[in-house]
């Protein structure tokens, strides 16, 4: 008798770690997440005196030091898509499903592996970006910096873990639905950037009633240390988390039902 924890989960982890592309993508995500953040911290520190007065009074030290995380997020989402799309592309999904006929168990194992990896990467990258970024900002004594116990900082670091896990899972679910890496990645990136691009053009009611419930705005409620309750897309951390979890759950349920209906998963 094979089990999820004893068999399917270790097998999915072996699959993910035994291809070089996984590690290439992780290193790329690290370089982008932390590298861009540190670079931006250097620029801010050097040009702090030149910033507009309102940006200095409400200076977002945490956000400044983690500015690269949004780009790293895209790369982690790619990882989630590749974890599954490559099986459909090669046809190896048939081997997977013939060894483990339970579609739900296969999807659960993939989801747990992607979510755990996404959470660890998000939290580690955010912590590195934050710590290095605060040290860099501190070079200029005029810049206010934060410690790990600063307001919203711990929530933000763990929030990045949750956000990367959530987008990894969305990408995974889209990859199962579309059986294609390109489609899954494009859809996930679209979901990440739709709020950012459309936000400025939409009337305030649409921003607060529609846009706020998109996964990226919802995730921001967790990953942004310095939340602005006056912002149109403000939901607060709890509602944001609930919204994000709902998106992921719905996407995974749709993916599972398609796996059950289709021939060869």
């Amino acid at each position, binding site marked *: *008798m*094979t089990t999820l924890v*004893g*068999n*399917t989960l*270790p*097998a*999915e982890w*072996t*699959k993910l770690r*035994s*291809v*070089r*592309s996984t590690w290439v993508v992780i290193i790329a995500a690290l370089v982008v997440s932390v590298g861009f953040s540190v670079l931006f911290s250097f620029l801010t520190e050097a040009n702090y005196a030149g910033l507009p007065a309102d940006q200095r009074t409400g200076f977002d030290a945490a956000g400044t030091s983690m500015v690269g995380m949004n780009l790293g997020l895209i790369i982690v989402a790619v990882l989630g898509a590749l974890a599954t799309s*490559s*099986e459909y592309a*090669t*046809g*190896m999904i*048939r*081997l*997977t*499903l*013939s*060894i*483990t*006929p*339970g579609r739900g168990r296969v999807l659960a194992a993939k989801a747990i592996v992607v979510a755990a990896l996404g959470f660890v990467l998000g939290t580690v990258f955010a912590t590195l970006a934050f710590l290095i970024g605060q040290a860099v900002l501190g070079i200029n004594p005029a810049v206010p910096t934060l410690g790990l116990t600063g307001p919203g900082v711990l929530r933000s670091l763990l929030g990045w873990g949750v956000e990367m896990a959530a987008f990894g899972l969305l990408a995974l679910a889209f990859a199962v639905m579309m059986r294609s890496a390109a489609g899954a990645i494009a859809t996930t990136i679209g979901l990440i950037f739709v709020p950012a691009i459309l936000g400025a053009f939409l009337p305030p009611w649409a921003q607060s009633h529609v846009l706020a419930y998109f996964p990226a705005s919802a995730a921001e409620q967790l990953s942004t240390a310095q939340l602005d309750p006056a912002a149109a897309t403000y939901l607060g951390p709890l509602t944001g988390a609930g919204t994000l979890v709902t998106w992921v759950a719905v996407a995974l349920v749709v993916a599972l039902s398609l796996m059950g209906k289709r*021939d*060869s*998963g």
Partner: protein
Amino acid sequence: MIKAQDLTKRYGTTTAVDGLSFDLKPGVVTGFLGPNGAGKSTTMRMILGLDRPTSGSVTVGGKSYQDLPAPLREVGALLDAKAVHGARTAYRHLQWVAQAGGIPRRRVGEVLDLAGLGGVADRKVGSFSLGMYQRLGIATALLGDPPVLLFDEPVNGLDPEGIFWIRTLMRDLAAEGRTVFVSSHLMNEMQETAEHVVVIGRGELIADMPITEFMQRDSLSHVRVVSPRADELARVLAGVGGEVTRGADGALAVTGLDAPKIGDLALEHGLGVHELTPVRASLEAAFMDRTRASVQYRPTAEGDQ
């Protein structure tokens, strides 16, 4: 061990498998024959619970595949050898399969050696030749030491040495009491390996019988006779009940009389014979004969013999 009952699979208006029933016995190699597109792969996917039958059922050891507690220990399958991730090494590929199927890790090394891949275990699969892919697929199928083995076109891309290896392997596996089900569109291959055949065309069962029986067709076994006085000889043979047809090269194809009898008759009548060859029906010929109606794509201006 594998029992199909009225197994049917339709894709829209196309019927890939049509009311197929068979019952595979352990201890023999059963060949699964049919032209390309006959529904062999679809049937194999339905046995493995990958494709859902439109109607009918197929069971392994009396159970539906979905209900097997550890499928890899029950059924080993090679469907498409190239359906593996090329960036993974052979060892890592087998490692995840073993983990998923609940097979101890040491078995990975054993099947790699068994398949002759021991020396390339740490090479990426993407660098393999087609023959090495097939060997990896067979190693994967053998990982769980299962009592039932399914091979879909296993000799594709194998060199002569590889073909000999897999023929021997399949016969050995059957001799150990396992159920071995091997599909092929190459009839001659089955002639060397299978004891029993299940033949399908256009998704329908054409034959389910021992291979010797399948090949025993009077119209296909004949004696080829070349004689300088063929016309006279033909009359003599027809006179004692032989059925004689004349080929394009002037040779006679005789049925109903065996070679010694024909030789004796020719001597009796003083007719010279330059060639006297018993021609056994090949599986190929028997197959062509039985499936003629069910070949999906035929040239329209085909001259039947």
